[in-house]
């Protein structure tokens, strides 16, 4: 009769169409089934159960599911973008710390040399002063020591901007900018996938450095309005910038997600790029023709099947037949709905391209000309003192750390002492026994 072993074999037998049984085991089960009516009944029950489970209809997604998910995904995408920028900022911050340490070491040596060599180096520095004075610095305020050696770097807007970002303590609080409700594209430009040989979804992203965030944002709004698109979401943030005198101001930045009619995608990308210095730009396109056509033909087939089932349903008289047809109709309808959702999603992407614009404000330019020797030694002294403070602080931290782990060291030492003592005793005993 039924025991665990034969039950397992019967389940294997039930799945034999998908998972081939060993011929010997198959023959054994078949032979047993011929003799044992209980096992035959059990197998029939299992077949019925499996059939009923397989016939359970798929439930369609609840109303508003995709819209709600879309909003959450856009939110997550923005968070992802900001955290990525933050990681980059932290990386450059740590990199600049290493550079600063190197420069500090060079400065210490330089101070020692200045102290001993005296006038010749002063003459050399005053010569450098006249050259430096002619340089119109792109960025005002006292530059960090790292910027000192290369004046040409100071003239490069991007480098100066990144350095100032390094000084930032982190991103300011994120606030949501007003988002315009979507305006449908004009009827003259409505996208009809069937009119195109190829169905290509195009998306883009642009990173810009702009003079003023608010102005750039307004210009983007105007471009989007003119091209009959809409702003899907916008996030702004501010980053404090510091110099030797403390906080110098805030840099505004943000990411804006746009939806533009795909027929005007190129125009939008071009116009957006004119709003500032492009630091990164990307256009991606992928062909969905095959999938689209395939999905459409599957829907047509299923609809034809649905029609046939409805006809059958009208003719059916036996309750069991009606239930069976009804179940199949529900399955077909669920599948059609699911495929329609895919087509809807394709249509949306084909009709409206998505453009992610990342805006970062350039630091304010100050056209002050700083002479070299007026504050060079002050800055050297200040930085030297800062380095000394850093060294003292480092030793303090190490000292505090050592004291903090002292209890663990004591316990570890005691255990180590006992182990060593035991090992030594063991070796001594062994030697004596030999």
């Amino acid at each position, binding site marked *: *009769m*039924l025991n665990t072993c034969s*039950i*397992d074999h019967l*389940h*294997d037998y039930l799945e034999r169409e*998908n*998972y081939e049984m060993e011929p010997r085991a198959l023959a054994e089960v078949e032979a047993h089934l011929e003799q044992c009516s*209980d096992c035959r*009944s*059990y197998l*029939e*029950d*299992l077949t*019925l*159960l*499996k059939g*009923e*489970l*397989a016939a*359970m209809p*798929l*439930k*369609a*997604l*609840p109303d508003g*599911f*995709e819209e*709600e*998910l*879309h909003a*959450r*995904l*856009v939110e*997550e*995408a923005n968070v*992802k*973008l900001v955290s990525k920028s933050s990681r980059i900022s932290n990386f450059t911050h740590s990199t600049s710390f290493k550079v600063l340490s190197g420069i500090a070491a060079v400065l210490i040596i330089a101070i020692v040399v200045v102290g001993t060599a005296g006038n010749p180096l002063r003459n050399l520095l005053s010569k450098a002063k006249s050259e430096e004075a002619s340089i119109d610095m792109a960025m005002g305020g006292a530059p960090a020591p790292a910027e000192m050696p290369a004046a040409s770097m100071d003239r490069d807007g991007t480098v100066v901007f990144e350095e100032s970002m390094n000084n930032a303590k982190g991103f300011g609080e994120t606030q949501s900018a007003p988002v315009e409700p979507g305006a449908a594209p004009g009827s003259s430009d409505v996208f009809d996938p069937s009119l195109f040989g190829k169905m290509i*979804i195009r*998306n883009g992203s642009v990173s810009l450095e702009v003079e003023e965030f608010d102005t750039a944002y307004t210009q983007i709004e105007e471009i989007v309005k003119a091209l009959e698109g809409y702003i899907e979401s916008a996030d702004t943030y501010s980053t404090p910038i510091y110099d030797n005198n403390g906080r110098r101001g805030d840099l505004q930045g943000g990411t804006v997600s746009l939806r533009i009619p795909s027929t005007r995608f190129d125009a939008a990308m071009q116009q957006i790029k004119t709003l500032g210095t492009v630091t990164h730009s990307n256009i*991606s396109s*992928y062909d*969905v023709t095959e*999938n689209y056509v395939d999905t459409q033909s599957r829907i047509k087939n299923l609809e034809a099947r649905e029609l046939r089932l409805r006809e059958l349903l009208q003719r059916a008289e036996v309750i*069991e037949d009606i*239930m069976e047809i009804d179940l199949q109709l529900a399955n077909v309808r*669920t599948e059609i709905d*699911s495929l329609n*959702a*895919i087509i809807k*999603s*394709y249509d*949306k*992407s084909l009709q409206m391209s*998505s453009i*992610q614009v990342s805006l970062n404000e350039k630091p304010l330019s100050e056209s002050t000309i700083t002479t070299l020797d007026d504050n060079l030694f002050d800055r050297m002294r200040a930085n030297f003192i800062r380095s000394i403070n850093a060294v003292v602080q480092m030793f303090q931290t190490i000292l505090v750390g050592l004291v903090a782990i002292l209890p663990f060291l004591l316990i570890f030492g005691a255990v180590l002492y006992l182990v060593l003592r035991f090992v030594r005793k063991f070796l001594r005993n062994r030697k004596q026994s030999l």
Partner: protein
Amino acid sequence: MTSNDAVLIQKSKQGDVHSFELLISKYQVYAYNIAWRMLGNEEDAKDATQETLIKVFKGLDKFKENSEFSTWLYTITVNTCRDQLRKRKKVMTLSVDDTEEKVSIQLVAEESADPAVRLEQKEVAGQLLSALGKIPEFQKTAVLLRDVYGFSYEEIGAIENCSVGTVKSRISRGRHGLRSIILNERSNKIQEGGTI
């Protein structure tokens, strides 16, 4: 994994929401249905599916591209539902009707069901949902994935992080349990004098 999926995954990793939506469009209905069967109500299933899809979007960088995306997604679905079940701190029935008694019973022993008594189609269809809620959770998930959604043993093993042998054992015990529960309920009705 299809080449189309691979492209969509790459783009989704860069934060492209539309690519991600296209990518999951094939799978989200199944994820929702798994959640619905595991959690027993539409609201929780919707929350769990959304949570799953957000987790997938956030964790795409961790996805190994030599594995199957759908399997990975369903693994996260199943685990998210288990977390929710754990939070509830009580065993749920799978029944859509919440008025049913929510009890967890150990698998009814084989002896309690008379093998001579056979299942009938109409009673199986009516009692299946309630019976699914009464078998142990791991067996229920394995039966759902195999018999309702048609996953292979290997896929279920990947989703549940267990061997094919364990999967087969859970499925056979799960089906066995379903049969026993339905037969038991039937014999109870007979004893109460009701009709089948």
